């Protein structure tokens, strides 16, 4: 952690990010964030916001800002940055530096759509960044990591969609991490003005199976009547530490849908905060993690209902093999005045091994009575009846387990609803399960996780 505090806020090497083209307010913000980062304590086990998380493993000392990639790495990265859907524009970053960029087409540019790397946007659209960059509240426990992100962030995407503009094809960004113990700080800021529509996907990936650190922030500002679909497809190295903070501000009659799709990282903290700020706002919050080995996915969510007649629906599913662990802590908060709120929260965990662990803490906090809210969590293994049914059709056991596990993930993809993007996610899920067969994890032994560690809470209001 000391290494990161001391690190320079600028990059050297062949990158296009130097201190000279940074506005003063940006640099001042970095300095303040640095001070904040230093002042804030590291999370501790007893912190309510970090309950059950393996915080004792969160040592940031080994990590340094990732350096520029070599030509050979660059070639491999560009070759692997493949999308199986057509995009209206995309950017490829490696170690926070822009490798390749295909901007929004002329038609979108004429309509005023801004799709720029933040390194460029700082010069071209400073007013937008000054107004919106890191302006969303961080309330779910990662204030320290948000400060680190602000202090270190050099790149990412600014996407601005003007009023009434519909962007039909998705836009995408790739963020690659390359080299051992490198740190990256991807940022995504999407501003969708009234009645606009856009879909955006972030792909987070590591070039090799090496340790690394990623602290990313995504802010979605969804104007009145606008519609934003966002996917964060996280497949960092399974040795990486990842902190992923997503916040959504949903205006009147606007619709936000986000999917946190997680495959990578040894420890991944995912915070997702949706504020339903306008009457009739709608927010769909989806999460899907497929984990194996000793991976840990720590997910904290908040559905904050500030305005009346709003709807939010959260579905987080985790499939866990070997000694993997998931934590889900979710809160539906209905503020005074948020009458006729419709809010739902579901967490489902599939344990594919007796040593996997799923902690689930759904919650409700309701400040008025004219609401419909429910939450529920289930944790279980593959049903023996489902398995027997498949075996009776002649499907071998390993194949039956695989089909049922993949089937478990389908519900989330169906809810996400983008057929082209889903195809890519399905391939990644299949690949993850295939790799899972080769993962060797030592027997649980002394630290054996007994059945009582599998918590399952359920409740309905």
């Amino acid at each position: 952690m000391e290494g990161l505090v001391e690190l320079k806020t600028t990059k050297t090497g062949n990158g296009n990010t130097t201190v000279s083209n940074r506005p003063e307010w940006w640099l001042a913000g970095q300095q303040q964030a640095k001070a904040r980062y230093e002042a804030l304590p590291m999370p501790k086990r007893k912190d309510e916001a970090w309950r059950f998380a393996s915080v004792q493993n969160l040592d940031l000392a080994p990590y340094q800002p990732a350096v520029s990639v070599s030509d050979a790495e660059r070639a491999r990265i560009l070759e692997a940055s493949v999308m199986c859907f057509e995009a209206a524009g995309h950017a490829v970053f490696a170690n926070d530096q822009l490798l390749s960029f295909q901007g929004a087409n002329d038609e979108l540019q004429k309509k005023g759509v801004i799709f720029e790397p933040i390194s460029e946007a700082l010069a071209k659209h400073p007013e937008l960044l000054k107004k919106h960059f890191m302006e969303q509240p961080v309330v779910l426990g990662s204030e320290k990591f948000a400060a680190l992100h602000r202090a270190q962030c050099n790149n990412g995407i600014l996407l601005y969609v003007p009023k009434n503009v519909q962007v039909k094809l998705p836009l995408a960004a790739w963020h690659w991490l390359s080299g051992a113990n490198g740190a990256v700080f991807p940022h995504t800021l999407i501003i969708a003005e009234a009645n606009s529509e856009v879909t955006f996907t972030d792909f987070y990936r590591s070039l090799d199976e090496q340790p690394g650190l990623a602290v990313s922030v995504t802010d979605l500002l969804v104007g009145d009547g606008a519609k934003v679909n966002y996917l964060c497809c996280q497949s960092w190295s399974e040795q990486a530490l990842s902190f992923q903070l997503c916040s959504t501000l949903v205006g009147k009659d606007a619709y936000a849908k986000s999917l946190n799709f997680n495959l990578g990282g040894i420890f991944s903290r995912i915070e997702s905060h949706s504020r339903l700020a306008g009457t009739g706002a709608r927010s769909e919050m989806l999460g899907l993690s497929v984990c194996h080995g000793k991976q840990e996915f720590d997910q904290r969510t908040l559905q904050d209902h500030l305005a009346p007649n709003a709807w939010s629906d959260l579905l987080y599913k985790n499939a866990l093999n070997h000694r993997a662990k998931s934590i889900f802590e979710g809160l539906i908060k209905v503020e005074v005045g948020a009458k006729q709120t419709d809010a739902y929260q579901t967490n489902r965990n599939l344990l594919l091994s007796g040593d996997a662990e799923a902690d689930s803490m759904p919650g409700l906090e309701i400040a008025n009575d004219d609401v419909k809210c429910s939450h529920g969590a289930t944790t279980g293994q593959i049903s023996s009846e489902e398995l027997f049914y498949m075996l009776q059709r002649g499907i071998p056991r390993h194949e039956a387990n695989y089909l049922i596990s993949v089937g478990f993930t389908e519900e989330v993809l169906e809810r996400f609803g983008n057929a082209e993007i889903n195809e890519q996610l399905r391939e990644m899920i299949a690949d993850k399960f295939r790799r899972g067969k080769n993962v060797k994890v030592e027997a649980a032994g002394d630290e054996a996780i007994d059945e009582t560690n599998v918590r399952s809470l359920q409740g309905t209001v």
Partner: protein
Amino acid sequence: MSCIEIRNLHANIEGREILKGLNLTLPKGEVHALMGPNGSGKSTLSKVMAGHPDYQVTAGEVLLDGENILEMEPDERARKGLFLAFQYPSEIPGVTIANFIRAALQARLSEGEELDAVEFYQNLYKKMDALEMDRAFTSRAVNDGFSGGEKKRNEILQMAMLEPSYAVLDETDSGLDIDALRIVADGVNRLRGPKLGSLVITHYQRLLNYIVPDHVHVMVQGRIVRSGGKELALELEAKGYEWVIKEAGLEVTPEPANG
């Protein structure tokens, strides 16, 4: 000999003996009905034959074309040609009918052999049409949100696609209205022939009006107590089970709530 031969089969669930020395021979090419009061062990027999892990076989054999299948895993028994149409088929969220049946057919091919997708869909659609199933069903998750009738049709569809040598149909008529019953029975009748032996388990004679059996067996308290021709089913319908139980020298006990 091409048959399923069950010899002196004893089986327990949770320490309680349900099958108590059952003998039955089902030759290929025939349809046998297995009738009996609730709680006589009919469904248990189907599950034991298929290898359900909740049941322990304590004695006896089940020979499929001369080979004892009781030591085999359930999937191996299925690939040997045994099919069970479930009374309560499981719902499998997220796995489409098409993918499910494909996986089952693929499992029957030798290593390196790939199922021909075009042929598969042609065959699937043909069989769905015969069962009056909408083609949209292929992309629906297996039994997920299906009505009782849709589930049973899906069972018969799988049977038609997998072409087993022996099929056990466990209370396939339960929960069906008369139209659905006719469609399901027609589906089974189409599969009748020299290559298939069927054991039709039913509590009521009604189904046997549509699927006319070659033989009828009556099961009481874990054993076959009487066998006969199709007229035996009519006799049971008219007179109930009590007389058979008494003739077998067994005590008549009140029927438990479920079979």
